[in-house]
């Protein structure tokens, strides 16, 4: 077996948004949505990116797929550098990365039939046309568990789960190396979530695609992912293998996230409530335009001491292989 290769290498990526200065040049805050992150994703791997709303997950995923240029840093997809590429070159690179969106009702053009929606990437890149195009569309539909008859329907004639299958088929049409899944099941009924997740897993086994799985639902993350990345205010605070992470989360923020997952068993839920007091977070997520000094988490951290307000902890390796950015954990 050859050595595992990286499909994605992110180095020191930051995305800052310059607030628009007022009419009279009032100073505007810079929103630091993503603030210097490094990440590798292996071929065939599923990496979960977790964090609360506003932590920069969506900005980072938009940056990875090339919809949002980073302020600094480098993003490599396989051999190709995305940052700085333009026009045709950028378009060719983008073929390797696709995206699945949260709300399937909004990710399909209501005026495009299903077949046309799936055919679009193949058509605009001139990969297939005519009979071959039809053939490919029907293959993709079958691959995601739909039938060719669905090609002739409009999105509103399908259920939410079926629509998400169409979105997946469209994302896979170009045979990408990486698919960024932005909360792909959170808008779906609980009853169809498992189906979609299983479909994603099955497609990964067949095609060897890698997933960056953006989510705040740790139960889903545990079900599908190989590695977990926890993000807080534009930085990664913990990166660990799934089993390591779920057995022993180390960063106080990761612990708080875990403590917030409800247990199905009321007995266990009560036990959990007994010892989670320490990890109930107080206060709101600070504004990304005004990130606290030192460790960004110190304003809400139960372990915070003086050093946390002064020095920002770097990600450092722990005994079990996890990378954690905390002075005290």
């Amino acid at each position: 077996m050859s050595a595992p290769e990286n499909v994605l290498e992110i180095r020191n990526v930051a995305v800052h948004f310059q607030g628009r200065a007022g009419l009279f040049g009032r100073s505007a805050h810079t929103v630091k949505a993503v603030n210097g992150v490094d990440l590798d994703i292996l071929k065939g791997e599923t990496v979960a990116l977790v964090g609360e709303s506003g932590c920069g997950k969506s900005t980072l995923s938009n940056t990875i797929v090339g919809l949002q240029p980073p302020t600094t840093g480098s993003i490599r997809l396989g051999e190709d550098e995305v940052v700085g590429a333009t026009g045709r070159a950028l378009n060719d690179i983008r073929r390797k990365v696709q995206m699945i969106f949260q709300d399937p009702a909004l990710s399909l053009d209501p005026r495009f039939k299903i077949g046309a929606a799936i055919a679009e990437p193949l058509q605009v890149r001139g990969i297939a046309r005519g009979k071959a195009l039809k053939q490919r569309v029907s293959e993709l539909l079958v691959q995601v568990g739909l039938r060719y008859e669905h090609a002739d329907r409009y999105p509103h004639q399908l259920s939410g789960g079926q629509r998400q299958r169409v979105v997946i088929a469209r994302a896979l049409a170009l045979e990408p190396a990486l698919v960024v899944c932005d909360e792909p099941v959170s808008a779906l009924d609980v009853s169809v979530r498992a189906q979609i997740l299983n479909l994603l897993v099955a497609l990964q086994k067949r095609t060897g695609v890698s997933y960056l799985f953006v989510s705040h639902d740790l139960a889903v993350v545990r079900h599908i992912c190989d590695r977990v990345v926890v993000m807080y205010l534009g930085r990664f605070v913990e990166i660990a293998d799934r089993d390591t992470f779920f057995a022993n989360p180390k960063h106080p923020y990761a612990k708080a996230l875990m403590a917030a997952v409800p247990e199905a068993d009321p007995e266990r839920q009560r036990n959990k409530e007994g010892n989670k007091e320490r990890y109930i977070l107080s206060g709101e997520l600070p504004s990304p335009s005004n990130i606290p000094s030192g460790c960004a988490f110190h304003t809400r951290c139960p372990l915070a001491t003086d050093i946390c307000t002064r020095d920002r902890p770097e990600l450092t390796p722990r005994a079990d292989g996890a990378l954690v950015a905390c002075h005290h954990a």
Partner: protein
Amino acid sequence: MVAFIQSARSRISRVPLPIIIVSIILLIIVAMAILAPWISPADPTRQNLLGRLKAPGFERAGMTYWLGTDDLGRDLLTRILYGAGVSLGVAVLSVFVSTLVGVSLGMLAGWFRGWAEIFIMRMVDIVMSIPAVLLAVLTVAVLGPGFLKLVLVLGLTRWPRYTRVAYAQTLQVANLPFIKASELAGAGAVRILFHHILPNIAGPILIVATSEFGLMILMEAGLSFLGLGIQPPAPSWGSIMSVGRQYVEHAWWIVAFPGICLFLLVFSVNVLGDWLRDQLDPRSRTR
């Protein structure tokens, strides 16, 4: 062939009755406009000062004036028939021009943002702040009056409304995930604008266009009344009505009949536009 006729028949039977009625009204008005020279009982400009302001049904020298005569003794029915072409033509063409200009600019501003947005939307504010009549007077002063110039004046003063609607709608649609998905698919700006954004913003634009349609006929009337539009003695519904306004106490028919035609035309266009907008949306066609 039989199947085709059957499917056509079933398609027609699904069209609601009011839509069939307004379509027939529109067809009649269009036919009036086209056939005016052949079906008119008289010459639209021949005056007869002895027979001015005669009531509908007035007979003279073997001819019946079914809708009466105007202030110069011209046959009102003939003038309405000839006027249909002018009113319809000005309205259709000026709505077409302003939609074309307005929607293109609005989509450009909403899609590209940045300098295009600032420049176009400020232009909209400027044009909207100039009274249309003033602009019309200026244009006519430079170009002189005439049918096509009237269309140009109306088209070029009315585009900002379309731009605002197209701009706001484009902003909204451009942020939806399916547009992102098309970008990721590799679609360029032209494809996204014409294949994804335009069909999705067509509904509100159609509504603006139909409401503007009636307004165009009235503006043509107003400008013609000021001597800036269609030059007398050529008839248009608007100019017939603005002349008739002075005589409304003694001769109600001069205002009433073109007014009824105008009402039917504008009403029909609005009803049809509303229905068409629904038909454009695949979500309303679910079996």
